[in-house]
């Protein structure tokens, strides 16, 4: 009996001491906040190297995309200490900089020899700078991203489908070269029976609650010639936001939605798109490049079944910018460790591993490597897309600007309210009101 008691006491002692061991080995823990998606898992893997090297433990707070902005902006506005590092959306940069939520990184970059010239210009402009076009940096480009497309390469390759398409359109069925071609392909597949199953044309973004439909519509507006403002007169939007070309772009998006999406596709964003594509419902899928590595690995629709293409042009080239920069939160009690993470993350070899694990590096050491385009079937398209990206407003009032567009375009595209011109006219009024309240226009 005494032997058992001694054994139990020894076990209890080991159990009590066991958790204390790693805690004493790692001096500090920092928390990194981001959205819950595939690249976040890659970052967890990558960050193990940081912990091994610096002895600083990492904690992660990942929030699902639909709640990400709400959750994180509330955290910043309430000066919360949850996040030491935040990989925040590109559009938050203005508000976060002006309201003092992010630490300005210029001095740190200068001291540590981190050069913004080492990163792709579009990502520096989109993720790091505020005011835009000035050398004021609030984040290090962490995750390059843009809105692209996937298609069912295996369906496209079928002789019967090829023949049918050629008969109908007089050309080979291939990845579309224009948005008009894209709509034709979607129409061609809509309602078609493949392997005894009814399939649909395209999964596109129609989500109402956060940013979904705005991102989707923008991928059509930019190639049709939409501009946010007069390049010579900031905040002058009349004739740019509601130009005849922009109207055509919005009408084209609605036409695609009406003709070629699966039933019940009225409030769909990235996850719904992934579900539709993975379940073999759609021929085309609009989604962020960030998901492409995961889709390529998918057993059912990945590998030889899937193809990728950049958002096709119409009048000009243009893709919606996604992606984020990594920032140090001003209210963090662990700024030194958070900055150490950024210093570590900026190294070319870490960036190479980041890309290899499934993250989209924005570092030129990765992207300018001659072999980069062949590292993945979507790598070349990613490079092309990042060369033509356009971003939404990154103003401090971005949320108001975004919600106004969500409402106006959802009203027009999904709820059939008014015309495209009326929707864009109303959007200008909404945006003018926001800028007037902000004192940017009279």
């Amino acid at each position: 009996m005494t032997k058992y008691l001694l054994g139990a006491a020894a076990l209890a002692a080991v159990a009590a001491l066991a958790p204390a061991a790693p805690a004493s080995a790692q001096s500090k823990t920092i928390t990194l906040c981001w959205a819950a998606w595939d690249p976040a898992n890659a970052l967890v893997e990558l960050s193990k190297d940081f912990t091994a090297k610096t002895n600083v433990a990492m904690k992660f707070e990942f929030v699902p995309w639909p709640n990400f902005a709400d959750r994180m902006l509330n955290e910043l506005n309430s000066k919360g200490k949850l996040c030491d590092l935040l990989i925040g959306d590109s559009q938050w940069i203005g508000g976060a900089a002006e309201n003092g939520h992010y630490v300005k990184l210029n001095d740190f970059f200068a001291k540590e020899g981190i050069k913004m010239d080492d990163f792709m210009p579009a990502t520096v402009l989109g993720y790091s700078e505020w005011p835009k076009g000035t050398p004021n940096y609030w984040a290090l480009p962490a995750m390059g991203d843009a809105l692209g497309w996937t298609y069912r390469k295996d369906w496209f390759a079928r002789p019967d489908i090829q023949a049918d398409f050629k008969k109908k359109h007089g050309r080979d069925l291939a990845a579309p070269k224009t948005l008009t071609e894209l709509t034709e392909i979607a129409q061609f597949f809509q309602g078609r029976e493949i392997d005894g199953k009814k399939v649909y044309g395209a999964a596109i973004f129609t989500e109402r609650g956060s940013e979904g439909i705005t991102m989707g519509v923008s991928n059509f507006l930019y190639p049709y010639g939409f501009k946010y403002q007069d390049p010579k007169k900031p905040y002058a939007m009349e004739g740019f936001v509601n130009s005849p070309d922009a109207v055509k772009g919005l009408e084209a998006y609605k036409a695609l939605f009406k003709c070629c999406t699966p039933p019940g596709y009225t409030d769909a964003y990235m996850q719904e798109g992934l579900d539709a594509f993975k379940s073999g419902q759609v021929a085309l899928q609009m989604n962020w490049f960030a998901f492409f590595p995961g889709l390529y690995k998918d057993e059912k629709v990945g590998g030889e079944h899937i193809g990728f293409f950049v958002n096709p042009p119409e009048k000009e080239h243009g893709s919606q910018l996604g992606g984020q920069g990594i920032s140090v939160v001003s209210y963090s009690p662990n700024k030194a460790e958070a900055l150490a993470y950024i210093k570590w993350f900026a190294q070319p070899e870490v960036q190479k591993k980041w890309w290899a694990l499934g993250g989209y590096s924005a570092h030129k050491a990765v992207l300018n490597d001659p072999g980069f385009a062949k590292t993945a079937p979507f790598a070349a398209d990613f490079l092309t897309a990042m060369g033509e990206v356009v971003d939404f407003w990154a103003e401090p009032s971005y949320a108001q600007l975004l919600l106004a567009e969500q409402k106006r375009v959802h009203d027009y595209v999904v709820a059939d309210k008014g015309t495209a011109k009326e929707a864009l006219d109303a959007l200008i009024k909404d945006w003018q009101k926001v800028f007037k309240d902000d004192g940017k226009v009279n």
Partner: protein
Amino acid sequence: MTELTPVSSLADRVAAASPDWALRRAGGFSDRSIAWLFIAPTIVLLLAINIFPLIWTIRLSFTNYRGNRPNAPLKSVGLDHYQSILSDPDIWAAMQATAHFVLWTIALQTLLGFALAWLIDRKFRGHALWTTIILIPMMLSPAVVGNFWRFLYQPQIGLFNYLVSFISGVPPSSFEMIGSVKLAPWSIILVDTWMWTPYVALIILAGLRSIPDYIYEAAEVDRASSWRQFWSITLPMVLPFIMLAVLFRGIENFKMFDMVNLLTSGGPGSTTEVASITLKREAFEKWRTGYSSAFAIILFVTVFGLANIYVKALNRVRQR
């Protein structure tokens, strides 16, 4: 509305109701002081949780304050927010959507709730089990209800669409409950009715069971028909309970948020954007704190005013 009891008279009543031993132990304090001591925490809590935020909200509604820019200079804007809200067509559209939702849910829940209560009151075999089953929906969280009805309404795999298809012969994918402008307002009404009819039924059941049997027995002796008994005894006696249920559901549905947000997010477009969704977007997504405070005050005054008128009517019915 119950008249507010003056605090001093409340303190006196508490003192009068206090047991002697309590008063003896607290020697040195007057009855009145002890009474104040007992009710003070409640009053402080009430002031801190209800009254102060209300006053603060009223104050903010006259300013340009934004929760995400706490360091920006605070400017008074007078009645600008109120004027802007009352002349904004989008706000009126949200109020219309709210009114449509409130009126139809109340009408349906009252009718169905009465029918359910009437059935349960019959005390048929196994009625206790059925009563428990019927009450399940109201025990669920609105978030859960919103999410699973979203699946039920899915045109391709949703059970609801299949059920309608089975009954009517219409293909299940041919209609979209939450994606169609015409059907979406009805889809949220249907879910709310499914969830809260048992609650209304429960209140009405209490009313039905409070009617003494001898009244019906006397009516039987007078050879009153069942219809006559219903109109002259059941309905008048149960009316205060129905009115109470309508009051509760009316107030609750006027500020409905969670279920609608999860089901439709206010869409398609702004078709089901009820007032509370607009308010949340203004306050916590756009961060127009001053503006949203003014909107909250307008909503509060509307609900408070309507509830007051209603309670007066309810008191008149009870006195009859």
